[in-house]
């Protein structure tokens, strides 16, 4: 059986198995190729694409790979993440919004609400 040689791999590079749900990244337009109407700050950076799908072959993070998307289409790019989490959340309650409900009920005067205290916003 042929031995898999990974001599150029940095120590500890993560091997990803074919079939895993992954995200790939590619550069669509490089900084000099951007549309003429794009403002200066955007001209200086590339137009990048991220897309997810199932890895076609075993690979390491950072490799150029091919994936099969959920629609069965083949897309090439650099392997950047394995099943990445959705990073968004509800975050923490925002203090500036916390008292609005009480203030409005107080204005209506139809419901007992906590008295405003020193230190309350605003």
């Amino acid at each position, binding site marked *: 059986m042929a031995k898999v040689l990974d001599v150029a791999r940095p120590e500890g590079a993560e091997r990803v198995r074919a079939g895993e749900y992954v995200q790939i990244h590619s550069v669509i337009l490089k900084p000099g190729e951007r549309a003429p109407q794009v403002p200066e700050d955007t001209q200086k950076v590339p137009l990048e694409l991220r897309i997810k799908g199932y890895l076609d072959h075993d690979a390491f993070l950072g490799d150029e790979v091919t994936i099969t998307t959920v629609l069965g289409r083949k897309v090439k790019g650099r392997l950047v993440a394995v099943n990445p989490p959705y990073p968004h959340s509800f975050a923490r309650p925002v203090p500036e*919004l916390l008292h609005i409900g009480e203030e409005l009920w107080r204005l209506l005067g139809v419901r007992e609400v906590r008295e405003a205290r020193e230190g309350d916003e605003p």
Partner: protein
Amino acid sequence: MIPGTSYAEVMARRHDIMKSAVDIDYEKFETGAIAFDYEGMMDEVGYTLEEIHAIQEETSVGRTPLVELRNITEVVRRISDPGKGARILVKDESANPSGSFKDRRASVSVYCAKNKGYPGVIAATSGNYGAAVASQAAKRGVKCIIVQETYDSKGRGQPEIIEKGRACEAYGAEVHQLTVGPELFYVFLRLLEETGFFNASLYTPFSIAGIETLGYEVGTETLRATGRYPDAVIVTHAGGGNVTGTARGLRKAGCRHTQVIAASVDLAGLHMASDTDFNRKSFTTGHTGFGIPFATWPDRADVPRNAARPLRYMDRYVTVTQGEVFYVTEMLAKLEGMERGPAGNTSLAAAIAIAREMDRDQVVVVQETEYTGAGKHPYAQLSFAREMGVEVRRGDPRENVPGKRIVIPEHPSQIHVKEVPLVDIRRSYIRNALSHAKGRQISTEDIRFLAEDTNSTVAFVEETMRELGGGEGRA
């Protein structure tokens, strides 16, 4: 020969790509250097109200509840002059399958794609429309690709857009997430060419016809609920489809005296294609960054002729600030038990200010809500704004500075609308139309069209042309 795929090469053949991707022969409706037969296009390519109702019923779209906001109306009356403070009602469009009125637009586009035998649909959108197309495509068993502008160059995703991307994936779509830039359109065109999918554009006659049912329901249901047609309907305005479709539906419902008021969040000063400004805005739609350009030049869209022509229909155009919309979003949750938005609540913020000017026996209808969720929610957006260095505080919302400071009102009486003078928008539209005509001779038909498209008069158009020095080429 395989056609080239460089930016310039693909853009050069965009008209052919778009034409085969929507199967509409736009050229046959052209009637001049500027003019085209808008109503002819809507009649021939769109569907009747009855047909749309039937299409939408198949996928459970529309017939959403019309909700009277009794506590908010009471707040408005407490802060209004005696006899003032109109009743405020809201059309709870979040009750649509994917959580927004965009399902109405998507339902017709996806139906149309399937009917015409396209293998799938593609939409270029960072908004609720993506989830709507993906959801409708799932219902009809059609393949779906969504192209989004999601990240800045540091890979930081706008939380609201990340959420919308998640929703698209949840409905089974292939989601392409790009960094900032209008070249999203180039990626979109390449995908259309590569896949042969249907362009589920927001701006086709199908998409606009899909919203007419919303205006129609608002008109007829308000009459049933209150005994009168709405005195004013407030529409959150971005690309113009919401204003156009709603107004057309209202007319079909017999609302002849209903004022159609467009409302956008004021993001003046932020550049929509700027990598650094991108994540300094807390609203990804419903804002002036789309609202003004699409009102002053609708044909900047992803189809040759935009069926959304908001200037024809808006009687008034106002803006509100981000902080005011966050405040009313909280008000809607706490006083009415409805957690929605925030972007869809732009029109609610405007309604609170406008209801104060109106009599108590009058009725103002906010014609949409949208679902809320992780990333979209005010907590998520305001926390993200702070991380981006935007100041968030309470105070007078007039101190708001887009991208720098979000001011949450301290009292409902601080909610105001700022007028966008329609005469300026009309002038600007005429200037854009003349510059796109590129020296071609302007006919009387073109002038008549401009008067109609700006909801003004031939005299106004002629006077504006004289002011702009463009009247000499007239036939």
